[in-house]
């Protein structure tokens, strides 16, 4: 009897488990299909609604574009699907990544918006700049968030204070430093006058600041109401831009639907629905593109570049500068013991200019770049090649550097420098050199670059003392900041709009090479570059207030030359940027950066 009971109990338990799992399955399946249906239905409703609400305007907008751009009238589609990398967070305050900004570009209104590369006022009505270029007064247009509340001047002020001030730029604004350092809610030099007017005052005129701020409104009340949940889900965002984010399946997709309350909804962003498809696997991305599951790939990396039809690929800009950073300080920072010497031998070796030159000259940079990443170009400068000079030519062509290392490397010269270094340091043979560690990220391109370079050093110079130290990105950057390396493969994002920002990386104080400041405070507040040069600092600082282009460019050129000659940061490669679009996609534009969703005039034709 007891046994029977046991048995029946067992059977019921098993059944319960099964039913539970089955039930779970059922509900989840329903959920997903519901979600799928509801988003589709919502999208459908939305389009229907918008058509009903403003039938004339939508239609005329589409017909306008088709008429002007193609003689034969083609049917357009209202959905655009593209592969892109997911944002880290949509919390505007804590966002640090460009990827987030690309989404804000779609979901938020802007004071000025870059449309196909041209900065145009959007919510900004008028901008008055004082003669001394110190006071900027903005008035804004009538515009609303999608929930109907008005966008006010305070919202822009809040964004500027909360987000725009950084360690690098806060000194330019009156009271900015105080606000940034103490994380204040207000700033003396940034304030609103009334609901539609706000003012920015600067400490000194800056050549890189022209007032055309591409910033977003941020409603304080909303931010405070959401607290930590801000930007976590589509419901935790306040929309004012061309699109509403309706669904975000993390790791899979994001769905956007046109926002009819957007200030320029009638003229810009004609595509009704956008779907951002997340795919981190090159083969998968390629499969989707070939299948027609997606219409475009925002960032064509080297693996995809080899697969996709070259006719579909378009180059837009180099976005990052790769270079080899040598630790010439001779110490490492540790949490326990503070600054620790990297050893007399290592320190002397890395401080030797001839040795660094030998390492640099041994690298065939153009061949390595071609091998590591076919989308990249070889780099020999610290300023982006897309920066315009005084005339039509690029700055880098107008202002050249002298005594640079050949792009193809120079094995003979390298050996010569090495021998000079060995003689200076009293070594008779390379085998006596101390171990050096070459630090980089553990991602494919980085490790490949480092492996290739180390192999070249081995074959050209006979160096066998360099070991590779691969670490996950966060740990690698931490190690780099603490100077726990002898050689580091550095990558810096390049801003083609601001050459001075790039040069600021190597300034001694306030810049990234504030080693002295680090030593004094023990707090890393920078990326420790090894370049310390007063003449360089003066040039870069003065360039910020030099409004004459030719004079400024020549200062930048001199600074570049100083930095180059020190062989502390050896420029090597410019990370390339390609995007791919199917032939039926027109008006696609990538904004600055790795990739950006500049879909202001995007049209998808029926295919």
């Amino acid at each position, binding site marked *: 009897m007891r*046994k029977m009971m*046991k048995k029946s109990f*067992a059977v019921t*338990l098993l059944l319960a*488990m099964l039913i539970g*799992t*089955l039930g*779970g*399955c059922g*509900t*989840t*399946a329903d*959920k*997903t*299909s519901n979600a799928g249906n509801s988003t589709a239905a919502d999208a459908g409703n939305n389009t229907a609604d918008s058509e009903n609400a403003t039938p004339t305007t939508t239609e005329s907008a589409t017909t306008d574009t088709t008429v002007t751009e193609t003689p034969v009238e083609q049917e357009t589609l209202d959905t655009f699907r593209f592969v892109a990398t997911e944002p*880290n*967070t949509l*919390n505007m*305050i*804590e*966002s*640090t*990544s460009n990827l987030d900004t690309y989404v804000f570009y779609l979901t938020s209104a802007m004071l000025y918006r870059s449309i196909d590369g041209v900065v145009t006022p959007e919510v900004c009505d008028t901008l008055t700049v004082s003669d001394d270029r110190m006071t900027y007064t903005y008035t804004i247009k009538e515009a609303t968030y999608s929930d109907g509340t008005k966008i006010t001047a305070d919202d822009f002020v809040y964004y500027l204070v909360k987000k725009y001030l*950084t*360690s690098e730029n806060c000194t330019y604004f009156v009271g900015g430093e105080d606000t940034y350092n103490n994380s204040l809610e207000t700033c003396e030099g940034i304030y609103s006058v009334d609901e539609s007017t706000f003012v920015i005052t600067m400490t000194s005129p800056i050549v890189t600041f022209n007032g055309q701020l591409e910033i977003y409104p941020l409603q304080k009340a909303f931010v405070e109401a*959401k607290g*930590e*949940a801000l*930007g*976590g*889900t589509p419901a935790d965002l306040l929309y004012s831009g061309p699109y509403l984010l309706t669904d975000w399946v*993390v*790791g*899979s*997709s994001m769905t956007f639907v046109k926002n009819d309350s957007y200030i320029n909804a009638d003229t810009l962003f004609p595509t009704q629905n956008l779907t951002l*498809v*997340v*795919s*981190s*696997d090159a*083969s*998968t*991305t390629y*499969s*989707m593109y070939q*299948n027609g*599951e997606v219409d475009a790939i925002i960032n064509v990396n080297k693996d995809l570049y080899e697969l996709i039809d070259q006719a579909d690929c378009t180059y837009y800009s180099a976005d990052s500068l790769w270079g080899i950073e040598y630790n010439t300080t001779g110490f490492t920072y540790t949490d326990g013991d503070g600054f620790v010497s990297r050893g007399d031998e290592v320190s002397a070796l890395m401080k030797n200019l001839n040795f660094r030159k030998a390492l640099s000259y041994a690298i065939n940079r153009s061949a390595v770049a071609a091998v590591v990443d076919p989308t990249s170009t070889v780099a020999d400068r610290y300023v982006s090649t897309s920066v315009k000079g005084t005339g039509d030519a690029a700055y880098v062509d107008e202002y050249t550097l002298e005594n640079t290392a050949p792009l193809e490397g120079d094995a003979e010269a390298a050996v010569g420098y090495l021998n000079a270094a060995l003689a200076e340091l009293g070594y008779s043979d390379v085998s006596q050199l101390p171990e050096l560690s070459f630090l980089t990220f553990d991602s494919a391109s980085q490790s490949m670059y480092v492996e290739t370079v180390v192999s070249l050093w081995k074959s050209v110079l006979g160096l066998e003392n360099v070991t590779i130290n691969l670490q*996950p*990105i*966060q*740990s690698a*950057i*931490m190690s*780099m*900041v603490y100077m726990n390396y002898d050689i580091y493969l550095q*990558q*810096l994002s390049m801003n083609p709009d601001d050459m001075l920002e790039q040069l600021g990386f190597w300034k001694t104080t306030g810049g*990234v090479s504030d080693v002295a400041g680090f030593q004094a405070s023990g707090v890393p*507040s920078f*990326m420790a570059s090894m370049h310390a040069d007063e003449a360089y600092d003066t040039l870069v600082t003065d360039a910020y207030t030099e409004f004459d282009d030719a004079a400024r460019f020549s200062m930048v050129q001199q600074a570049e030359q100083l930095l180059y000659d020190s062989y502390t940061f050896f420029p090597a490669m410019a990370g390339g940027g390609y995007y791919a679009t199917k032939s039926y996609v027109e008006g696609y534009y990538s904004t600055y950066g790795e990739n950006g969703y500049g879909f202001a005039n995007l049209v998808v034709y029926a295919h």
Partner: protein
Amino acid sequence: MIKYVAKRLLISLATVWAIATICFFLIRLLPGNPFIVANPLDITNAEKMMEYYGLNDPVWMQYVRFMNSLLHLDFGYSLAHAGRSVNEVIAQYFPVTAQLAIQAMLFGIPTGTLLGILSAYKRGGSVDIFAQLMTILTTAIPAYVLAAILQLVLSVKLGWFPASGWETQKYTILPTLCLSLGMISGHCRGMRTLMLEVGQQDYLKTAKAKGLSEVRIIFFHQIRNALLPMVTNLGLEIAGLLMGSFVIEKIFSVPGLGKYFVNSINELDYTMAMGLVVFQAVVVVAANFVVDILYVLIDPRVKLD
């Protein structure tokens, strides 16, 4: 019985606590700062954030805070992805993992078991050879290669299924298939061996000697006895599946917990990683708990202590 269940429950809870504690300290040992992103200039910001989230406090203080949140079953917000609540992530994406796991199980286990039975029934027959071949192929080829091949054939060449994504039911087929292939071969192999082993047992000979029909012997004696050990393994298998598969989730862009977990550790997202560790620990411990109890109920030889 009640005493036994209560005791197991207590042990299970203690296990979850121990796992949470060990993992808490292990994860803190990983070097790095969760707020550092690709741009090294943001290090100032990262330091500020460390201070803000209290990550510069002594570890014991952080531990007390963590235990407090554990007691309230609220794991807080992700550090690497501001605004993302850990509880919400689990609530939203565990069903995805579960759906995938259950679909794979519903397809994989019966298919595998059936294949095992058939190949044991006709050893050396065509079914057996097919099953053996499949077992060899799916065990010898790495999962990521298998997934890529399936994607190429079924999606790019034939265009039957979408290559990747998680939208409608159609999207779930490829990852399910991929996940269940390993299961099919595992169960097929296991079932085949068990069937053969059971075939040796004396009670089966007795049944044969009694002159029972072959069908009756196979269904009521052989299969039933062979299935028993498979059932006891099921709990752990389910638990393993419910943790998600990083490889498959990555290749097919499935928003499951497996990918989340690997990423959260790589990103040093302490709160997210801890939340997922504790959640997974609960799933495994619960599965063990159920299996322990089932075992006592099913197998009369196990005595309660």
